[in-house]
């Protein structure tokens, strides 16, 4: 430890700690622009110059490591003179157009200019002009003359985002921040550059000129999208969400937000919002009072229960619904006498139901990802599915962590990959078995009986051996399964094998989790099993054996389900479909009742993130129109149907009924009991489908976020195939092809992608253009359109 004195205060800091960091810990503020605690040191703004005893000149506090006995003066005459001098230089070329600048009021330059700037400029010459750039639909670079060249945005791209999309071209007075040619910034984390920019050079395009920072009230919330549970500061004006910013939480999202979390708020104000209850009568939709709509639903459900039996009612909810909503939905369904309730809409293998010892979760704290030194990632479109967890894995690789990847597609993760095996979806379990075998040999371990058979049937490939070696050499190993692995038809096999691999390495084992409440759904019992007993039908079975009534909570049947074709057929055939939704959508074709419910900003609720952290939030704005929080709607329905235990005064009471007195960590477990691995059979004839859910198609709110829909990640998906497979079918890249699954087809442009394994077609799910197709996995036909 080093003892250093700053402005007369003493502090002990570790070796390598910078003066600015030491001062920060003492609560002493040193003015700065280019320094950022999460980024590398550039020392190019010179604003943090301080006086240091025995140093002949002022030194930049960000780039000066603390030394034993060092005496620092941050506000001495010399230091302040230097800081004022730097400020004068910075303001020479700055346009000082604060009155029309979006950053005004939250601008670091403005703030520091008050303290260190002169009241008048001595500079009478011409100011430099830097032309505006178009770097995409999210980040506005319209006033680059305001840039002070701190390069925070550039460093963010390189160090956190993983892609160098912005750079500082030219030099000296001509230096400017730009992208190469007319390239756009396509990072899924690009919005953070707006936060990082200390001036108004990079601003938010969707928010531009819509409000002043001091007009906005700031309310805490939790992201409803991915399973990270990012903390949000939702900014509101006139009962409308105007902007979303990160709320710093070092254990979760640090000071970052993915673009999905940041810009999805546009979907909240979408014109498609449903604001009145509606009933379909004689094929026509009528707007009705809540009472009428709810009575219609209650009567309908009662009638079906009496005539056909409660088991003919099925309830489906998206994993983006709140814990309270999921809990009340299952309570209502079970109260009616049916156990057909599920939130795992894109899952296809339910054979592990009742064999799980708890809710599948990340198996570790999110913050611990940074300290893992060996990863085995199985079936994950990591960057697009979990942008900020991907960033944490990326940070770990910078400290030497090795990433081993088993997947059916080879998207660039923007980090070094030590070993990868890109194989057919049906071969993924074989690869895991090979890794397990190699690992067992290396560790001279005897394997559990449940995996012995499959392990005996395989011979480790060189890559599998390399993966095993990599994992065996690690101290902190994590085996993590992505969305693809969870949606996989052999999900429980993959889970079992991964469980044993992790156990052999003494490592962590878990699931990234698909959505905000992928863990919460289990805790809310929104699953058709309880403990070791399967009670009802899962999401897939409910469509397989069509039900007479469906209650849909936030679900868009053609986009949120594993098999949209089957889902639409089931909805079409049902006697009654109750669509509880914040939006008017395709349910207009198949539903009988539309109940307008509120998105996360207009209700209180709880999300349980993949690390098992229950985070409650309050509503940030009033419900739009006659929309009401879904938990209230379900409560009233429960009362109308005379189901006991629906007398909640508030959502907290619902949550407390679930969580108070329960040991939440004890309810989380990824361990399977009574499942045994079999040699991969599931041979699929012909081409196999590989599906990802595009980042901005994952849930109802993002699908309606207009600016996100203009990004490159949201372009209409192409079908992708290896060029060898294209040749076999005599197809050219760029041609339109007809893809057929079951009795539905889709027309997409086809593109060669040689990173894919032979024998697959990659077709996005969750998108309107592929909504006619069948399951996300399995065989698919490709022919010239």
């Amino acid at each position, binding site marked *: 430890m080093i003892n250093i004195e700053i402005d007369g205060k003493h502090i002990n800091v570790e070796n390598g700690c910078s003066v600015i960091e030491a001062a920060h810990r003492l609560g002493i503020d040193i003015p700065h622009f280019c320094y950022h605690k999460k980024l590398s040191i550039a020392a190019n703004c010179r604003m943090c110059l301080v006086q240091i005893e025995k140093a002949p000149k002022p030194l930049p506090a960000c780039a000066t490591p603390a030394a034993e006995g060092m005496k620092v003066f941050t506000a001495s005459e010399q230091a302040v003179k230097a800081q004022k001098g730097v400020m004068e230089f910075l303001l020479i070329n700055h346009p000082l157009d604060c009155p029309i600048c979006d950053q005004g009021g939250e601008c670091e330059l403005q703030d520091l200019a008050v303290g260190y700037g002169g009241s008048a400029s001595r500079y009478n010459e011409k100011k430099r002009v830097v032309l505006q750039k178009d770097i995409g639909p999210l980040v506005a670079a319209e006033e680059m003359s305001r840039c002070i060249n701190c390069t925070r945005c550039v460093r963010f791209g390189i160090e956190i985002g993983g*892609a*160098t*999309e912005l*750079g*500082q*071209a*030219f030099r000296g007075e001509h230096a400017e921040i*730009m992208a190469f*040619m007319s*390239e756009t910034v396509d990072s899924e984390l690009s919005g953070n550059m707006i936060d990082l920019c200390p001036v108004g050079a990079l601003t938010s395009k969707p928010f531009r000129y819509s409000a002043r920072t001091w007009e906005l009230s700031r309310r805490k919330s939790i992201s409803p999208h991915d399973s990270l549970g990012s903390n949000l500061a939702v900014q509101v004006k006139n009962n409308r969400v105007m902007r979303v910013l990160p709320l710093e939480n070092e254990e979760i999202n640090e000071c970052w937000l993915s673009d999905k979390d940041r810009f999805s708020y546009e979907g909240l104000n979408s014109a498609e919002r449903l604001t009145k209850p509606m009933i379909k009568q004689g094929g026509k939709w009528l707007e009705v009072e809540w009472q009428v709509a709810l009575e219609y639903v209650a009567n309908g459900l009662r009638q079906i229960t009496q005539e056909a039996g409660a088991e003919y009612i099925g309830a489906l909810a998206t994993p983006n619904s709140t814990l309270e909503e999921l809990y009340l939905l299952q309570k209502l369904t079970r109260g009616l006498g049916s156990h057909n309730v599920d939130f795992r809409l894109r899952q296809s293998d339910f054979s592990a139901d009742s064999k799980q010892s708890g809710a599948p979760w990340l198996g570790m704290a999110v913050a611990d990802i940074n300290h893992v030194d060996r990863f085995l990632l199985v079936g994950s479109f990591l960057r697009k599915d979990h942008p900020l967890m991907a960033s944490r894995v990326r940070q770990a690789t910078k400290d030497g962590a090795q990433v081993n990847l088993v997947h059916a597609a080879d998207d660039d993760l923007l980090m070094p990959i030590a070993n990868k095996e890109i194989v057919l979806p049906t071969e993924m379990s074989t690869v895991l078995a090979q890794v397990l075998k190699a690992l067992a040999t290396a560790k001279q371990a005897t394997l559990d009986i449940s995996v012995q058979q499959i392990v005996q049937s395989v011979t480790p490939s060189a890559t599998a051996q390399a993966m095993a070696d990599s994992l065996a050499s690690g101290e902190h190993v994590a085996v993590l399964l992505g969305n693809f692995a969870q949606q996989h038809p052999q999900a429980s096999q993959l889970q079992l094998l991964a469980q044993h691999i992790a156990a052999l390495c003494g490592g962590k084992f878990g699931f990234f989790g698909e959505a905000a409440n992928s863990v919460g759904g289990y805790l809310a019992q929104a699953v058709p099993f309880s403990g070791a007993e399967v009670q009802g039908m899962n999401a897939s079975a409910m469509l397989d054996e069509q039900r007479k009534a469906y209650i849909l909570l936030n679900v868009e049947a053609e986009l949120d389900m594993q098999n949209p074709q089957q889902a639409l057929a089931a909805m079409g055939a049902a006697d009654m479909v109750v669509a509880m939704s914040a939006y008017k959508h395709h349910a207009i074709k198949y539903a009988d009742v539309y109940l307008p419910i509120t998105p996360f900003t207009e209700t209180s609720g709880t999300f349980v993130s993949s690390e098992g952290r229950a985070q409650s939030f309050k509503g940030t704005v009033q419900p739009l129109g006659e929309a009401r929080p879904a938990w209230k709607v379900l409560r009233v329905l429960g009362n109308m149907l005379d189901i006991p235990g629906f007398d909640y005064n508030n959502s907290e009471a619902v949550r407390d009924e679930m969580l108070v007195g329960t040991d939440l960590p004890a309810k989380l477990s990824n361990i399977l009991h009574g499942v045994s691995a079999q040699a991969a059979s599931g041979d699929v004839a012909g081409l196999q489908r590989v599906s990802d859910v595009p980042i901005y198609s994952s849930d109802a709110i993002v699908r309606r976020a207009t600016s996100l829909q203009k990004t490159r990640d949201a372009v209409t998906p192409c079908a992708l195939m290896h060029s060898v497979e294209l040749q076999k079918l005599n197809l050219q890249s760029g041609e339109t092809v007809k893809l057929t699954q079951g009795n539905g087809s889709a027309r997409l442009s086809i593109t060669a992608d040689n990173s894919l394994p032979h024998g697959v077609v990659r077709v996005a799910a969750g998108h309107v253009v592929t909504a006619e197709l069948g399951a996300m996995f399995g065989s698919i036909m490709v022919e010239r359109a």
Partner: protein
Amino acid sequence: MLSEQVRAKTDHELKKYPPDRKQSAVMAALRFVQDEKGWISTEDMADVASYLCMPQISVYEVATFYNMYNLKPMGRHTLTVCTNLSCQLVGATETLNYIKSKLDIEVGEVTADGKFGLLEGECQNVCDEAPLFMINNKKTCGNLTKEKIDQILAELDKE
């Protein structure tokens, strides 16, 4: 796509660096492109980037930082006249003006036939030969007089 010669020369440079530090050869690669074409287009920069497995904008940063890389087409023979202090003291301005009038172009321009280009440059560290210019950043011609300039230009014209 980089030409075979540029790739061969770049490969030779790459041997000097560890295999995971390919981008160390970026300045050399850009130089080879300029030697071949007289200037570096953004397409060439993109090619260099993909050849060295580095971000395109990083190549652009390098190419725009150093002023000896030509970012627009220059003549087959580009003369870079030093206008720094030592050369100024012995008549660099007159030398430059003479070349301008002789070639009938301004600094940064190329003659209509594409043969000659003219640039202003920085000190070449041979001030004892001032005033001077460089031809294509390769050959320094010093102790310039009107006669000597005429002679050099005539020789280059024949090439």
